[in-house]
């Protein structure tokens, strides 16, 4: 009962789209699916004859009583055994076929999603949370595939049993069958109604649970603030109120969903009793044999399950549609424009970069970069400075072709980078970001990320050069130590050093650096600065600079404000000019 409620909290908005895409995606598997449906039908049909034959057995015994014809009874018994054994074999075969189909379908679906992730433009992820994409990969795929295989088996089985049971009952006694059939539509309607009603409460429960979970998350994250502001009582009160609401909603949801059980039970019992009474009358009148009524009763009790199951499929189908909509919506997102073909190349990289009147906007409305033009000679160290929101990071994103300019273009050694392959452009630059992302793997694997064929010796040399040798050696397993994005065996500053070394191993002709602003202790800071200098010397480099020393040592400072270069020059010339840069500088460093 519970899983149904959990998965149907969301409804598909565009049912037609969700359904069409889903059907399209299972199309390659139509043959095994059809096979499994046929197997299910076969298994159900074979199973249906079991009560009938058991009834025949009793009839033979009663008819030949007291000298029971054991030969005839025995042959019926053997038939029963063959039937249910065969039925079980078919049932297993269908489950197996379906399991393989759904496993492979799931695999393909995941594969499609991961491919999609690497084909989507970065801008997609500015607008969508990672958690959302992740839950499409995990939860939604899970819901879709498990409920799909479950539904295919259930519906085909239930329908077959329902129809088969009806036929068998009719062959035993038409009037008795009619009595039982009356129960069917009533109980389907009632159960369906209850399920729908329960859905409403399940949604309420899920929503309240969501609210409560975010409250917990928030309070735990801010526990210091709560304590130091004596806010515990208010926080508890608010928590308790939501918690109470949840308990109420959960009770209601649970009660309603479990209501369908006693209700169907009443209906089937009513049918059962009616059959006993009516059947009794028929037997007494001589219209029906005892064996038949026995068989009939068994059929009536088998009538119950498929009805409840069919009534509850609506809920599962809803959850399939909701999941399929989320998955296929993601899969049909617009991908990055393909690389030019044939693409241009930079034969021998000198490292001359030029921005030609570049404009950029994320949403097509608010301009972020305006008329950006600059020529950077080979080997120049460029520092980009300016207040938050001036567009510094965007310049770098454009250079790496994470985004494309709205107008204007960028050239490297005279070749426009939008005419080159993206991979080739990115090959030109080594990048060190503020966000010190490392993947789960060993230190060595992480350092080799930019050059797979680097030897351990290469890496050790770079490590020495980048001041991380002693850090790596202090780790429990040296270069084989496992680290990850959120591993805490190394500090933030050390992570930064690792990312610098990673860029160094790749040894690219140009460099892009985004200096971290904070949370690095002074000693590490010193090392980082030193490595930064080594990394940039002799290469064309772009640095989003926060440290004074970096800025002062730069060959060219680009002062940005609201998407434009307002000033450019070196430290001394800019200070003399007494403009925006001088202002910025004086507010921070000047003695009194």
């Amino acid at each position, binding site marked *: 009962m519970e899983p149904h409620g959990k998965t149907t909290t969301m409804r598909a908005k565009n049912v037609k789209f969700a359904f069409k895409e889903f059907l399209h995606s299972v199309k390659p598997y139509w043959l095994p699916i059809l096979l499994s449906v046929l197997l299910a039908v076969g298994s159900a049909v074979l199973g249906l004859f079991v009560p009938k034959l058991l009834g025949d057995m009793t009839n033979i015994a009663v008819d030949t009583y007291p000298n029971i014809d054991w030969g005839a009874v025995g042959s019926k018994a053997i038939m029963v055994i063959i039937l249910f054994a065969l039925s079980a074999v078919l049932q297993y075969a269908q489950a197996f076929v379906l399991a393989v189909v759904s496993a492979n379908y799931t695999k393909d679906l995941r594969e499609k999603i991961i491919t999609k992730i690497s084909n989507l433009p970065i801008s997609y992820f500015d607008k969508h949370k990672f958690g959302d994409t992740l839950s499409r990969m995990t939860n939604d795929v899970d819901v879709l595939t498990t409920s799909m295989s479950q539904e295919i088996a259930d519906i085909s089985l239930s329908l077959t049993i329902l129809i088969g049971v009806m036929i068998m009952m009719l062959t035993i006694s038409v009037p008795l069958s009619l009595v039982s059939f009356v129960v069917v539509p009533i109980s389907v309607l009632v159960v369906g109604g209850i399920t729908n009603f329960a859905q409403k409460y399940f949604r309420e429960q899920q929503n309240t649970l969501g609210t409560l979970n975010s409250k917990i998350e928030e309070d735990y994250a801010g526990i210091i603030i709560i304590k130091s502001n004596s806010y515990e009582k208010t926080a508890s009160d608010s928590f308790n109120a939501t918690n109470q609401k949840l308990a109420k909603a959960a009770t209601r949801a649970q*009660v309603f969903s479990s209501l369908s059980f006693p209700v169907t039970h009443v209906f089937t019992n009513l049918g059962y009793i009616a059959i006993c009474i009516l059947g009794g009358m028929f037997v007494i009148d001589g219209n029906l044999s005892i064996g038949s009524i026995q068989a009939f009763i068994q059929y009536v009790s088998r009538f119950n399950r498929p009805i409840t199951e069919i009534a509850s499929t609506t809920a599962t189908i809803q959850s399939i549609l909701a999941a399929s909509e989320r998955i296929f919506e993601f899969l049909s997102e617009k991908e990055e424009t393909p690389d030019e073909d044939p693409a241009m190349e930079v034969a021998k990289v000198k490292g001359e970069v030029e921005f030609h009147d570049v404009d950029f906007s994320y949403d097509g409305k608010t301009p972020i970069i305006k008329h950006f033009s600059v020529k950077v000679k080979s080997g120049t160290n460029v520092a980009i400075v300016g207040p938050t929101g001036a567009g510094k990071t965007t310049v770098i994103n454009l250079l790496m072709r994470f985004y494309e300019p709205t107008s204007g273009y960028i050239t490297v050694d005279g070749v426009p980078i939008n005419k080159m392959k993206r991979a080739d452009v990115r090959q030109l630059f080594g990048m060190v970001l503020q966000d010190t992302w490392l993947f789960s793997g060993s230190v060595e694997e992480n350092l080799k990320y930019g050059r797979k064929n680097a030897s351990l010796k290469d890496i050790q040399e770079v490590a020495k050069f980048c001041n991380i040798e002693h850090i790596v050696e202090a780790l429990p397993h040296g270069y084989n130590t496992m680290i990850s994005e959120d591993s805490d065996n190394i500090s933030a500053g050390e992570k930064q050093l690792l990312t610098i070394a990673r860029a160094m191993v790749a040894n690219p002709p140009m460099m892009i650096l985004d200096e971290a602003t904070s949370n690095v202790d002074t000693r590490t800071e010193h090392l980082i600065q030193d490595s930064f200098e080594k990394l940039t010397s002799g290469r064309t480099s772009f640095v989003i600079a926060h440290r004074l020393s970096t800025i002062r040592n730069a060959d060219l400072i680009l002062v940005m404000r609201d998407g434009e270069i307002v000033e450019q020059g070196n430290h001394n010339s800019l200070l003399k000019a007494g403009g925006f840069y001088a202002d910025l500088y004086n507010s921070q460093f000047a003695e009194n």
Partner: protein
Amino acid sequence: MFKLLRFLKPYWWQVIILLVATGAQVYTTLQLPAMMADIINNGIVASDMDVVWRDGGIMLLLAMISALTSFVASYFSAKVGAYFSRDLRAAIFQKVLSFNMTSLKNYSTASLITRTTNDVNQIQMIITMMLSMLLRAPLFCVMGLVMAVQTAPEMSWIIVVGIAAVVISVIVIMTVVAPKFKIFQNLVDKITLITRENLTGLKVVRAFNNEKLEHKKFTRANDELTRLLIFIDRILELQNPLINIIFNGTTLLCSWIGISLLNQDFRYLGNMTAFAEYVTFVMMSFLMLSLFFIMIPRANVSAGRINEVLKTSPKIHYAKKTHGLPEKRASVEFRKVDFRYSDTSEKVLDGITFRAEAGKTTAFIGSTGSGKSTLINLVPRFYEATSGEVLVDGINVKDYEKDDLMRKIGLVPQRGVLFAGTVKSNIKFGAPNATSDDVRKAAEVAQAAGFIEKLPGGYDARIAQGGTNVSGGQKQRLSIARAVCKKPDIFVFDDAFSALDMKTDARLRAALKPITEDAVVLIVAQRVSTIKDADQIVVLDKGRMVGKGTHRELLAKCKIYQSIVKSQLSEAEFRKEMHGATR
């Protein structure tokens, strides 16, 4: 798992009603086949229509009672389950709120959240199942057995055979599959991890042109998972066909034995049908029980994690009432304070002694791991000094009632923390009685007024959960405004300025000056520029105080301070500074 059952205690009478209702329901359900046997034996075979009608009537009554009791039972099991988990969740929440930093350090926030949410949900599911299924199954078993033996004692052995077959088949399948579940979970986690890394490292992956490499990694895990899944399914899917064979087999056996017994007693004609139904009931109950016991280990993991939290006793107990006479002006004093996380670990702070006066700024600087954050967390008693004394207004912090102490402190942590609500509700967080004017003034001091006024709704603008709809710098400024609005005697800035750009940092410190005339200001900082003007700077290195004094004094005599300054300023600037210091 069973330890948690004490949370059921307040609902004992509801559990009893549940038990009675379930018993009644099971009893009535089991009477139906007996009545039917009676109809066949005494009504149909004897051609007595009166018996048929009478028994039919009784059956109808039984069915009604069964439905009613079943409803009562599901109502109470739902209710007890929901309220049980409500209490459990509240208990964990209260516990976590009482934790000090040492306990918090042992668990990560994420893990505490999972324990309060997912783990409780797991337990709730198991409890509800237990209340509805587990109570019913043994009742069905016992009553079913009794009824079956009563109707046809000669056939009792069939029950034993049937139950044995069910239990053995479940156990065999599960022992083969269960160990694979752990591997399965690991692989699922791996897939999630790779996907997450591809998302969080989006730019790095692309910058290094490693899309293909990542894809290969994913495909390997994906293939492995698929293979394992097919293996598990291949065995798990045996369950249903096997159970069907067992059920059908027992029914056949019942008919066969029943027929062979007809010569002894013709009543076996009706009884064997009833008996077959009882056997099915009993086997069903065993099936449910065995499935339930398979779920227990999973619930046990959750229960264990919850118990761990509930068992953790808060290490710091605040006094019920504040003892001692406070000094007239605010002050913070450390006297030979040592601190270590546990008895066995190394000293994080070693012999710290200083006094911070009202109207003065005391700053702490040092590299990561020097203990500066730990030091200021001793003031609100988030950590407890291992030895030595921490005094606030001349009274030992151990003699304070919690809220009396907290009222004095305005804390701004390293990471700006906001709560869902409005800008105003966040600034008023520590001072519920603050007027709109107070709020605005606090925002101005914190250099937040400018961006707040640009927000849609201004001070009434919504803040999303965790403050995700404002930038890091804005978050930090709002959390500074929150501390300012509280008008505390002691300001504690735990590296609160480094998320701000230097210009804002400077302006903010200037604005703080006039409102901190009567307050102690403690600042932990990374940047020399932030603390240069402090009245007193404490330099820490590996938990020890290596210098205390003003910027100038320290420049002149403290080697470590010199190296810190040197790393942040250019050579020329450094020389200028040194010159100024020694002049």
